[in-house]
């Protein structure tokens, strides 16, 4: 103790105490925060999936979507949005929303486990009929035609998501996200539920077969090599301009200056 006693009046003592306190609180919070899902899972075993979903909904969603899912000034009603919508929004990490903004931002990892998401989806689906979560068969794009999917993609998707699926800006800070990391199920759900600013592409507009073709085309874009070399984000002329006026002109003018210097 002599070691500490001798240093308690050091100017660094206060800083050290503060650090220890902050680390302690942070570690404690992490332990408590991680303990919650386990606790929830333990309770879940003694209730039905819909009941569990309702409980999770009341805990995590009702402050914005209302106690009866009727919607509030903070969030839309969830009556009739269907299981697919819940699955899309929650498993992509968009919901629960961290803070109000131009639009919900995808987060990785999702805030709930798969089981909890399924429960909430079941609860919302029990309120009114809506699009169901697509089956494995729905999203199986093995036999789809990528070229046809490309035509459909450019007709229906590229005006917001850009022809290469890199995403695009919408009004007032909203945006169509990049499709380079999305899963087939996510794409399918987005099409049938129309999240955020996206329109709904129901099976009457784009039949399942065509949806599979679009998914196949997006999958093609995700894995497409760049035969021309460095792709510059596949964002078209703007990054090309930046590259031209920085790297290329630095090189050319650098050589010009070098030739000029050599003459002296």
């Amino acid at each position, binding site marked *: 103790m002599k070691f500490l006693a001798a240093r308690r009046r050091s100017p660094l003592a206060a800083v050290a105490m503060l650090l220890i306190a902050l680390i302690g609180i942070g570690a404690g919070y992490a332990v408590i925060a991680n303990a919650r899902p386990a606790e929830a899972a333990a309770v879940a075993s003694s209730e039905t999936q819909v009941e569990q979903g309702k409980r999770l909904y009341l805990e995590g969603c009702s402050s914005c979507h209302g106690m009866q899912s009727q919607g509030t000034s903070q969030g839309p009603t969830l009556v009739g949005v269907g299981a697919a919508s819940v699955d899309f929004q929650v498993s992509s990490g968009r919901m629960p929303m961290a803070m109000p903004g131009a639009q919900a931002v995808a987060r990785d990892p999702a805030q709930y486990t798969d089981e909890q998401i399924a429960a909430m989806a079941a609860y919302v689906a029990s309120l009114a009929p809506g699009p169901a979560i697509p089956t494995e068969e729905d999203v199986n794009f093995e036999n789809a035609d990528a*070229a046809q999917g490309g035509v459909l993609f450019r007709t229906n998707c590229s005006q917001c998501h850009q022809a*290469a699926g890199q995403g695009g800006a919408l009004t007032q800070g909203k945006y169509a996200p990049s499709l380079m990391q999305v899963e087939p199920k996510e794409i399918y759900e987005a099409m049938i539920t129309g999240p955020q600013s996206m329109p709904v592409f129901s099976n009457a507009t784009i039949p399942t077969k065509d949806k599979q073709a679009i998914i196949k085309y997006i999958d093609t874009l995700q894995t497409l090599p760049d035969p021309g*070399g460095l792709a510059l984000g596949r964002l078209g*002329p703007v990054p090309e301009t930046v590259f031209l006026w920085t790297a290329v002109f630095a090189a050319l003018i650098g050589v010009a200056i070098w030739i000029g210097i050599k003459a002296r």
Partner: protein
Amino acid sequence: MTATSPVEQVGGGVATYVDQRVGSNKFLARNLGKVFPDHWSFMLGEIALYSFIVVLLTGTFLTLFFKPSMVEVLYDGSYVPLKGIKMSQAYASTLDISFDVRGGLLLRQMHHWAALIFIAAMSVHMFRVFFTGAFRKPREFNWIIGVVLVTLGLGAGFSGYSLPDDLLSGTGLQIARGIMQSIPVIGTWMAFLLFDGEFPGTEFISRLYAVHILLIPGLILAMVTIHLMLVWTQKHTQFPGPGRTNDNVVGYPLLPVYMAKAGGFFFVVFGVIALIGGLVTINPIWIFGPFMPDQVSAGSQPDWYIGWLDGALRTMPNWESTLFGFTISWNIFVPAVIIPGIIFTALALYPFLEAWVTGDKKEHHLLDRPRNAPTRTGIGVMALSFYLLLWIGGGNDIIALTFGMSINSITWFLRIALFVVPPIMFVVTRRICLGLQRRDRDKLLHGYESGRILRLPHGEFIEVHQPINAKELAVITGKTDIAPLALPPATDADGVRNKHFHVKKLRAKLSGFFYSENVALPTAAEIEEGQHHAAHDAAIEAPLHAYEDADQINRAHGGVLHHPGMPETNAEQLANDGGHL
């Protein structure tokens, strides 16, 4: 005849043989020794010329495989994600060039990159000519030819961008047609005439092809020839420097120095283009897909040189009015027709406007340093900032997406900034130039600040100023001071009203705006006195040169440069040095 080497014998033999038939020796003797001045910025035009040569070479290759036809075909090439899709033959043949012609993608990318570099180098070259006043008499016509070349470059670039008939080029053409249609009275007729009917029609690509590969390159070649011939006969301008006057050209002869330099630089430019053509994707048309009028992609942008026009379109508020039952689309007509019209007209006429304002009728072969023409430099930077803001407007969606901003905020920022920023840039640039002029004058009078702080024996600190070297002296004194025009009298001696008084008054005022704040060079007497002063500083410093060995400095001694055995007071020093400080 004295003994000569075999090389000289053969070379001389060939020269004589050719000379006897075409009379070339006299011409070569006169021209191969032609002297060119040296400065890196004089090579910007060369970059443009060389990249144009690359464009011509690669373009010729592409014509062998490109089919400028709107005939619909089913794609059956090796790019799988488009297999079996209906597309125009133009697009299909561009895909074939990219995927099925050996080296096709490399040459297509080189062609596109070289085209971007061509227009960029022309623009930078134009900035250099503008900011150094190289457009002044007698080079006004060459300036206009330069402006025509840039305009042709834009036409060449845009027509090339539109040929592959991919989603981007079709979108660009749709906008171009919209711009045509916004021109009152003739717009609609013009669009129908050029496109042979409704958009996109089946004729436009083949028409554009003739423009792209024949008409515009032919005009560019002709203009480049005249441009270079004028440079040749008028001789190149030079920056002020030792021995350089308005009546001579100081530099190196064409042969061998410039042949080697220019030839070498050609291969460097070619090499850079080949390198990026092979390593960096440009315009991946296979990703954009074939153009269909019902399709469009987010982030559809033109190439960089049209970006500012796209930015003007994107920034303009949505104003329309109806006149005699016809809609006038100010929202398109103003940003896409009127603004570029004003900009290119002002650009072409600038040498004449400046000459009129300043009343400067002299020939200029010595360049202005940008600081010595503060108003011109200010105007240039003002125009550049306007251009750059429009450029940002052209990429507003990509900027919004990349930096998580609101596209509406960017647009509103630009709507205000386009009117606020350029004037600020003008004032700031002009003040910086005037400040640099004062600094030049100060350097002439008091020498440059050597960075050596001396403490004199009686405790005073001084910074040692040293006279500037001969080269810098020549650079600074190489400027010509031009007096602003005097205000004209309203009436002459007999009381007769001065004709065009108001025009002359305006001109005198503008001339005053141009020149009145310029800092004049000091007179010879002032410089003499200043040099004397600097020499005095140097004399004070002289005895302390012994301290140059840093190890010897006794730093504990109050930080004063001091050393045992050296004089500590002026009196002591005077005694040591026999009465000289």
